[in-house]
């Protein structure tokens, strides 16, 4: 796949600059010549997508971004003057900010590590063919069809302190003596939302890693077996290095996505008890509901800036590793 895409792009670039297409890819060269017809086709095919995303995504986001520097409160819409960095200061000065930041770190880290480890294990074991593998894959795929909000509701019912099945099962197996008030105790509430998110997210890792594993040539394993490498060595010296790029990208995508995923917590605890399970994005919902759009937008800007910075550094760091290796 990779080789196909590189041969596709390289001749295109040279032919546009040099004018003449390299003999290896004459057809690609023709296509990348600059002609009005070609430009028109690109513009016409890109236009619908660009217009939709510009009007319904980028315009509202930019309009929302400028609210971050204005006094924008539903309680007093007559005064929407510019207030500079006041909203940002309000966010950092809020007593909940520390808790929210800590929870967000816990939410992202506590979700991604078990998702990655369990997803990796599933992928390794699903690689070998066994009876009912297709059915098994289809069944463990199901959580993905459900909205995060509904998953929150599902687990909220199971973690119910009086009628919840979790307490019942734990008491039947003798692991606990008395029912736990899972969602009203801050410590257990965070554990409960993390369990729900792991339930949801493992599948994605399993799929991505399984696909990457299938690209590893069998000869590599045969060579390793001849050298007498054990299972652990094979895993760390062949499997993981070979799929490093996929792993790094999957982890990056998921970190961004889990960070920006208020739905599950919103459905399960609503950020409670006492703000103890709020992450940045659910807290943003709460501030919006309180009517302070300026402060909520300031928080939104912090999120976008933080994620962009993180993505840039992450990509640079993983790229460096890849180059050092090769």
């Amino acid at each position, binding site marked *: 796949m990779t080789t196909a895409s590189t041969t596709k792009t390289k001749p295109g670039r040279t032919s546009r600059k040099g004018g003449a297409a390299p003999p290896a890819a004459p057809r690609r060269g023709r296509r990348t010549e600059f002609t009005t017809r070609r430009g028109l086709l690109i513009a016409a095919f890109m236009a619908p997508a660009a217009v939709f995303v510009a009007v319904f995504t980028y315009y509202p986001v930019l309009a929302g971004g400028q609210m971050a520097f204005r006094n924008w409160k539903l309680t007093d819409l007559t005064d929407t003057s510019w207030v500079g960095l006041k909203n940002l200061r309000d966010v950092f000065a809020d007593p909940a900010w520390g808790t929210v930041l800590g929870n967000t770190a816990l939410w992202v880290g506590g979700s991604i590590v078990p998702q990655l480890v369990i997803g990796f294990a599933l992928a390794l074991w699903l690689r070998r063919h066994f009876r009912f593998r297709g059915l098994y894959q289809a069944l463990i795929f199901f959580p993905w069809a459900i909205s995060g909000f509904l998953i929150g509701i599902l687990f909220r019912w199971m973690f119910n302190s009086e009628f919840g*099945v979790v307490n019942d099962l734990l008491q039947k197996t003798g692991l606990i003596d008395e029912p736990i008030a899972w969602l009203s105790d801050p410590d257990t509430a965070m554990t409960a939302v993390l369990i729900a998110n792991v339930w949801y997210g493992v599948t994605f890792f399993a799929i*991505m890693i399984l696909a990457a594993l299938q690209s590893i040539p069998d000869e590599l394993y045969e060579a390793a077996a001849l050298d007498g490498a054990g299972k652990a060595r094979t895993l760390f010296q062949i499997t993981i290095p070979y799929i490093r790029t996929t792993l790094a990208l999957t982890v990056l995508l998921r970190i961004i996505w889990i960070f*920006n995923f208020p739905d599950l917590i919103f459905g399960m605890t609503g950020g409670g008890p006492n703000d103890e399970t709020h992450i940045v994005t659910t807290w943003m919902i709460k501030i919006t509901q309180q009517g302070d759009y300026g402060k909520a937008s300031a928080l939104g800007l912090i999120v976008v800036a933080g994620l962009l910075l993180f993505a840039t550094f992450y990509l640079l760091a993983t790229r460096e590793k890849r180059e050092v290796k090769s």
Partner: protein
Amino acid sequence: MIGKETPAGRAVKVAFLGVWLLFTVFPLYWITVTSLKAPGDIFAFPIAYWPEHFSLQNYSELFGTADFGTYLTNSLVVATVAGVVATVISMLSAYVLARFEFRTKTALLMAALVTQMIPSFIALGPLYLLMTDLRLVDNRLGLALVYIAVCIPFCTVMLRGFFENIPDALEEAAMIDGLSRFGALFRVLLPVMRPGIVAAFIFNFVNCWNELFLSVTLMNSDANKTVPTALNGFISSFNIDWGSMSAAAVLTILPTMVLFAFASRHIVQGLTSGAVKG
């Protein structure tokens, strides 16, 4: 992995796969069982793992008092329209991004990536004002338009992966045989792409079907609510009616699960061909 499997290793593997399957399926089993219990039995002790009295009362209440049929229809209409239009539009942009080199290409791909980092809440207020100006608040078409915009970036990247997996030689041959670029695209390329297109549509449909926050913001009247908005309405009241809630959950989950079951293989391929390349 490839070497011989020891009996102990096999036992660990089977146990792990079994436990994970149970963990995955149990919540779905549990919500279904709850929805089929007679309302009084839901809060009975000891907890019954199989309904003592089977009852469809939770479901009949949902359609009698809550008008759940309307919400299901609204969701179906909005998700289908948005899913189809977003897939068609993304197909065009994905084709261009996969087959041509041009100056703004990297910028366009970056713009698609950045949409994934923006928390939707920053846009809700301005979006509401924009839709008010366009007279599209509390309007199913309006919601569909917004969903189309939400689906396009990811769908484009996913379909681009599919296009790149199809050799150029295919269109080349069609064009040598006398078809125009458009002829080659529509009569040769798209039929080959069908699994990818179906997967992209289902992915879009499920995302729109499940979307909550935009729908809560834009749909106010009871006649226009979508399913997630209605579910959210069920919880904001102080006590949750768990019987109706679980019945509603089953009805919400079922259609998307059936779709995913049919298309899971294609979706897996679609997700991976888009991202593995990096």
